[in-house]
């Protein structure tokens, strides 16, 4: 079969975790029977986001950290499009952190994939918000002085209705999470534990493999926030990483909440506008009500 989703041969460093995400995502698209035209990849800046060059879909390659606002604009206007946001951990949790929180609470129907390799790969090796405190990275000449962020918990606390963590060492499951997330009505965050062999010596696939805990076996996905939070906290206390779909819930999406379930009406209705104009021009002041 011709690979309809391959635009060009991916070119990451050998051993880069990004390849697995590319594979898993391609498979998810194929298994969901999606057509390239109905998918929009909204990408930030960073190695992981290069995926827009390699995957054959529509793409809006934006600027650093602004994936979610741009993706929200796309989804509000045309919800028939499958909107997939792609960021690295720097793009999502450093410069883009605020948008994650606000997009989660709006519950915009976006599949947000964050490739978390614990480093700024593309700028060649500085610590990222998921780099563990006291790490020594290649291009930061001192021990890193910050506690890492907690993306899963931040998303949950902000009202995300689908929160998962994937692992590049397990492409099949990753693909399943992607599929579930794409089918989810609402905002989904999938933080994908990945690695950057070129610049992040602190995190290796072996180390990751040893530290992951599949949460299915612990009763996930939960619909109850408290259960999800407790589970994550417990697993993290043991120095482990939860992997799987942790939380899932159906709540009104932003398109539903702001009244554009079918998207924006792109045709222009001059009569309607004339009516509004007539009403507002003539009666603008008289209309204003004081109580």
């Amino acid at each position, binding site marked *: 079969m011709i690979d309809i989703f391959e*635009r060009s041969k991916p070119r990451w460093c050998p051993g880069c975790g990004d390849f697995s995400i590319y594979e898993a995502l391609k498979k998810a698209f194929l298994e969901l029977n999606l*057509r*390239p*035209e*109905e998918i*929009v990849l*909204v990408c930030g*800046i960073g190695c992981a986001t290069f995926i*827009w*060059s390699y995957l*054959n*879909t*529509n*793409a*809006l*390659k*934006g*600027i650093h950290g*602004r994936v*979610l*606002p*741009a*993706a*929200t*604009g*796309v*989804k*509000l*206007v*045309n919800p*028939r*499009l499958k909107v997939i946001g792609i960021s690295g951990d720097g793009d999502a949790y450093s410069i883009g952190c*605020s*948008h994650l929180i*606000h997009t989660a609470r709006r519950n915009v129907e976006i599949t947000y994939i964050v490739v978390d390799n614990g480093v700024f790969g593309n700028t060649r090796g500085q610590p990222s918000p998921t780099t563990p405190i006291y790490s020594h990275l290649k291009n930061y000449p001192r021990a890193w002085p910050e506690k890492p962020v907690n993306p899963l918990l931040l998303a949950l606390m902000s009202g995300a209705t689908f929160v998962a963590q994937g692992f590049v060492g397990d492409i099949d499951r990753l693909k399943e999470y992607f599929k579930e997330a794409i089918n989810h009505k609402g905002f989904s965050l999938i933080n994908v534990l990945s690695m950057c062999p070129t610049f992040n010596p602190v995190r290796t696939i072996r180390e990751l493999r040893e530290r992951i805990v599949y949460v299915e076996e612990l009763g996930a996905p939960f619909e109850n926030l408290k259960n999800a939070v407790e589970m994550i906290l417990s697993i993290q206390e043991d120095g482990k990483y939860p992997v799987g779909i942790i939380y899932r819930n159906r709540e009104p999406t932003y398109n539903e909440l*702001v*009244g*554009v379930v079918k998207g*924006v*009406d*792109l*045709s*222009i*209705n*001059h009569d*309607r*506008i*004339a009516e*509004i*104009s007539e009403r*507002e*021009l*003539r009666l*603008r*002041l*008289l209309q*204003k*009500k*004081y*109580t």
Partner: protein
Amino acid sequence: MKEVSLRIDGLTGQGIEFATEVIVEGCSLRGLNVCTFRWFPTIVRGGYTYSEIRISDRKIQARSDKIDILTILGEVEVMDADGLLSENSIVVVDEENSAPRFNCRILKLPLKKTSLESKTRPNIIAVGFISGLLGLRLETISKILERKISRKDLLESNLRGVEAGYRIFMDTGLESYNLPCSDSPKNVLQGSDLVALAALSGGCKFYAGYPITPSTGIMERLVKWLPEVGGVAVQVEDELSAVNMVIGASYAGARAMTATSGPGLSLMVEGIGLSSMAEIPIVVVDVQRAGPSTGLPTAHEQGDIDLATHPSHGDAPRIVLAPSTIEEYYSMTVDAFELADRYRCPVILLLDHAYVMNYFTLEGLQVSKVPGRRLASGSEGATLQVYPNYSGSIDAFPAPPIRGFLVVASSVEHDVRGLSMQDGRTHVEMSLKRMEKMKELEDQPISWEVLGDVDAVEAVISIGSCRCAVEEALYKIRKTGRKIMHIPLKQLWPLPKKLEETLKDAERIYVVEQNASGQLMNLVSSKLPKRVELKSVKKFDGMPFRPREIHQELMDGGIG
């Protein structure tokens, strides 16, 4: 021209805005033209504020050169009144407050006392009094109150108050101003109404914004109106989000806009560059306020010319427009959407605080019927490009999904298909292609006008709302036989070639603007003849020009 100018001074929280609205409506219902200006501080209650209402039988869009009736509601020190009061002016002050030492007729009236009696507030008593003085009928004012106030008890006390105020006026035995009232009401509105209406007319279907004075009114209107035409307006977390969301919406097919003021424009700079590079049309409205930084956030200034005309790192083509009349707040906002789509680039509309937030009579608005955005369809797939060369017309816009065609828009350098290219040659080609689009507008600027004597050797260049004050000043000067042309510069970027051509024989040029550093002067100076006498006419005290201020500058012998 028959006109009366009144002003109400006091403190925020005293209902001066409400009083203004009622009087403005009253005048409008009686067929008069109005134009207002409000000075107000950032604090919501207890700060010095005043409201100026100019009423005339002619179209007016500038402030008045005089105050006929000054009503002082609070215990305040009246500012910005020097030389505006004459012996014929009437100053109304509450009998309990200290009277100002102005050389005119001072009336100490029982505003507060009367308001207590009628269980309302002094502003309402003042409205009654002023209505009488203006010759507005009590029933007109009552009708307005009835439509404005829904709570019954509140309405009743207001009606009582207005009547009481009216009665005070009757008791003074003063004569009403003899204004040419009629029974054919006139439309009155704020600039923000026009910008929001024009957005609808221009086919805008998506708005995202973050509140900031003085732009917030535009968002408020669109949150209400856009859903009525199948669109949507959202309030988002910050300006970074706003501009990027608008870009996403436009990519997906909708004409889209955001509105902000200086600090927000500063934050949108990176997104504006993305719009330019990815060739995704957006409209960014910047309602200027006094800066730099937070500055005087509720004051009028034209200090964002610099930033708006240079709004990004790199070579990012953009269009910057500055409408100069209230009518143009409508027409040029519509233009902005058309130009954004035609040239696939950001269009920045540089607006004035004074026009956006105040009231103006508007008549004979030409409602635009532009066709909106035409979307590319799958049948065009074969010839379609995401980044075609500019064709001289508005191409069909490629929004996903298009059968057999993928829309790839990108912030990194790309070829015509949108695919990433890192070689220097593509960068050169695409940079030139992007810039090429600006040439047409250089040659055929939007809304170009030369007012007055086109063959004069004296010329005025003005920006935005300065135009109307300049025209009032020139009206007087021209009557003396002095010839001056006036170019209200409305397309700031790209600069019209006509500017240089038109001015090539000018010997004396006045550049009128409202900022401290002469940003308009800097912008145009390379287009002016070299050995010309140049005079920068600036005002930057947070308030719009009055005609006489410009008049004086134009009459001053010394120039240079």
